[in-house]
């Protein structure tokens, strides 16, 4: 417990408790935690819009792959309609593959890599499909045109030839060609193809209709080779794993989407945990702060109450302690004035020494109060000089013995007298005086007070032990407070200043005081004061150095 200034009426500032962190810092930390974890969790979220758009693209890819095959089959079957839908499908597929390059950010790096790898595979298939589709369109356009025109042209040439003389062989050949080409148109068997090849090799485009015949043969060639080419192209196209590649892409995406969803779920749970943690932290810090404040206020009001109490005690103590000697002085002076001339020398002397003792007691009391007041006001009232501690102890103990109540024995042990140390003699006298006086005062009748003054390395040790009433544990805390007196002192007179003076005197020397006491079995004070040696002198000199007079 830090000593308080007895004369100060000001309530000391409540010190902020260092153990409690300010709620505003906790709130800032909580916000930072929630914000950073929130940002992290937000970054991992599965963006529904992006997912919808992306999965829609992947689904469209599969749909368009199927549509592509269907559209090619329609054109293969010779159904009317332009190539625009086919062009549009290919363009949409290319666009979708380009757009699918932007894999949604919530798919992790590994997933992005895999989805892009599947996309690259799908794109490779698309490039092959594109080449096949373009060749198919060109070849199919020619084939269908020749298929339409050839039968008419061949029929017309055959008719025209049949009207020409000596063309029977040619007519038969053209009719045979027409028949076999039509067989190819229906079903391009190897058999029929061989037949057409044979016709083409044998028919000579000569005679009066040579030009027409040449064109018919060219169309027959186109049908024969075009039919095979287009069939191959179609088979090749239908074998391309376009839809499979797009599905594999969709599967890869779905797999990594699930990973992303799980991660997002975990991050949300972590985020919620952080929010709970942050809220709890803020609440706890606010409660802790409130409790600390309440404690501080209670402590402050206790200190105020104590300060008031101390002042009251000071007033009652001083009024009591000063009134008694003052009344002694006044009454002795009155008696001297009234009877002085009648009294003999002995009576005179008795009253004069009563006045002297009362005055000296008041001087001592004032001296103690001033010492405490100055020390508490921050004055280092420390005036070192050379002291023979053993001699001082003897002097003090002798004086106390003289005043001791009947039956109390004071035993003093000291080292050799004449060894001087550097210390404040006035303060040391206060220490010895008060400790020994207390020990005597609170001893039981016929009790023994033991005083041991010894010197060790660089320090003086003063041990004062009695077997008196002791100090209750509750009072030990406030033992060195000014005007505090233990609860068990009973009728024993006292100022409540003695131990406070001792404490300050020891503190001014930079020393330590320890107390060991239990109620009813005695008290032991152990004082250690660091000193430096100052050589050996005579006892006269020692007394002359003493700044304060007798006890």
């Amino acid at each position, binding site marked *: 417990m830090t000593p308080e200034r007895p004369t100060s009426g000001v309530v000391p500032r409540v010190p902020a408790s260092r153990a409690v962190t300010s709620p505003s810092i906790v709130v800032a930390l909580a916000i930072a935690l929630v914000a950073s974890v929130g940002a992290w969790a937000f970054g991992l979220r599965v963006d529904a819009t992006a997912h919808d758009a992306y999965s829609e693209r992947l*689904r469209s890819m599969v749909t368009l792959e199927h549509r592509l095959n269907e559209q090619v089959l329609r054109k293969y079957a010779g159904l009317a309609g332009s190539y625009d*839908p086919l062009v549009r499908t290919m363009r949409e597929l*290319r666009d979708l593959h380009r757009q699918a390059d932007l894999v949604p950010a919530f798919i992790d790096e590994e997933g992005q890599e895999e989805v892009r790898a599947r996309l690259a595979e799908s794109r490779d298939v698309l490039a092959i499909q594109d080449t096949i589709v373009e*060749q198919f369109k060109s070849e199919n356009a020619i084939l269908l*045109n020749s298929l339409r025109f050839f039968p008419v042209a061949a029929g017309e040439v055959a008719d025209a030839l049949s009207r020409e003389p000596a063309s029977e062989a040619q007519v038969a050949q053209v009719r045979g060609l027409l028949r076999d080409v039509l067989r190819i148109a229906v079903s391009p068997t190897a058999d029929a193809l061989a037949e057409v090849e044979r016709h083409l090799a044998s028919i000579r485009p000569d005679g009066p209709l040579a030009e027409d015949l040449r064109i018919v043969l060219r169309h027959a060639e186109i049908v024969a080779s075009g039919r095979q080419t287009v069939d191959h192209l179609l088979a090749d196209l239908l074998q391309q794993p376009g839809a499979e590649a797009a599905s594999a892409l969709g599967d890869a995406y779905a797999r990594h989407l699930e990973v992303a969803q799980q991660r997002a779920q975990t991050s949300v749970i972590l985020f*919620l945990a952080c929010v709970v943690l942050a809220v709890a932290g803020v609440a706890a810090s606010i409660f802790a702060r409130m409790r600390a404040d309440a404690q501080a206020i209670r402590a402050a009001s206790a200190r105020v109450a104590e300060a008031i109490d101390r002042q009251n005690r000071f007033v009652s103590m001083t009024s009591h302690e000063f009134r008694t000697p003052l009344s002694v002085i006044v009454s002795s002076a009155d008696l001297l004035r009234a009877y002085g001339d009648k009294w003999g020398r002995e009576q005179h002397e008795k009253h004069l020494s009563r006045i002297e003792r009362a005055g000296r007691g008041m001087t001592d009391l004032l001296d103690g109060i001033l010492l405490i007041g100055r020390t508490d006001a921050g004055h280092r009232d420390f005036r070192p000089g050379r002291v023979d501690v053993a001699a001082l102890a003897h002097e003090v103990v002798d004086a106390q013995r003289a005043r001791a109540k009947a039956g109390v024995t004071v035993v003093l042990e000291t080292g050799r007298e004449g060894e001087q140390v550097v210390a404040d003699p006035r303060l040391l006298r206060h220490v010895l005086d008060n400790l020994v006086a207390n020990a005597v005062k609170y001893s039981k009748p016929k009790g023994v007070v033991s005083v041991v003054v010894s010197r060790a390395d660089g320090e003086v040790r003063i041990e004062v032990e009695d077997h008196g009433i002791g100090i209750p544990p509750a009072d030990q805390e406030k033992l060195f407070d000014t005007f505090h007196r233990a609860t068990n002192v009973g009728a024993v007179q006292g100022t409540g200043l003695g131990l406070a003076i001792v404490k300050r005197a020891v503190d001014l020397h930079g020393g330590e005081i320890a107390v060991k006491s239990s109620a009813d079995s005695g008290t032991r004070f152990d004082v250690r004061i660091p000193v430096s040696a100052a050589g050996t002198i005579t006892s006269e000199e020692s007394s002359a150095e003493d700044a304060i007079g007798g006890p």
Partner: protein
Amino acid sequence: MFLLPPTVRNASRLRVIAVAVASCLVGCDASLTPVQPDIEGDEEVSTASEGDLVLPIPLDIVIDAPRALLGERLFHDPALSSDGTVSCTSCHDLVHHGGADGQVRSQLPGRTAGPINVPTVFNVGLNFRWSWSGHWQLMAEQIDAAMSAPHAMATTVEDAVPRLAPAYASDFAAVYPSGLDATNVRDALTEYLRSLTTPNARFDRFLRDDPSALTEAERAGWALFREIGCVSCHQGVNIGGNLFQRFGVIEDYLGQRRELTPADLGLARFTHQESDRRVFRVPSLRNVELTAPYFHDGSAATLEEAVQVMARYQLGRTLRDDQVVLLVGFLRTLTGEIPPRRAP
């Protein structure tokens, strides 16, 4: 959420996740088993009338006007070219030559002659690929090709950006968050080119159930166009422009008449595939009467000539003169409304 007991909270969460996973699995299941293609919203697939061999140009093509307007300015601006002397319109005359230049091959002042006949820019947004060979799969690639061609702009889009900055930087910044850069220049040009459709040709009005839009002869021409097989390749909304075809199906046209040039290689010039030799993108026939001369080498000066070459070398037909007249008459009904210039 805090107030729910943990068990209830977990249960509800798990259920939500289970539903999400299940819906995903259903989606994947659907993709594993062969499903009926979703043909909603694609009527062309499910209907098979002869009408949708050819379709009118849609009247509701969605164009982003601010970007298209920037593209229009760029298209007319010589600042795009290396020396500031030519603009896109130097070869793609939108007013007089149907989006082409009316020459056999482009010949700009101070530049070498181009290797090919300039194709039109009208209705290019309806093509499946770009350039005569059809090598470019994106319009932006075609723009880059024209920009870097020494006989055309002789620069690059990237190099043009600093030249454009004084006049365009703030206007691009107002339209594009990233402001004026090469990507956005290509985008603005692409958006403008997409806007260059020529709707409401008489033939389109005829297709939209207005029989009186065509004369009897023109309708006969349309019938002949289908009958002799032109429509095998020239079909779809752009009447061409949606597939590749070899030039010289029946017999060789190019090699028969002259020395071959690299441009005659067609797609093979880029792919180096033998099968792509003399393979070209089938051009659109829209506004064809405005874009003479014809073919990639400009070797047909008139429509009549072009029709006869196509019939003979692609279809193996010899047309009578009256058939040529009917076909040409039909082709002249494919001229649509030339898109007006939006900004001065």
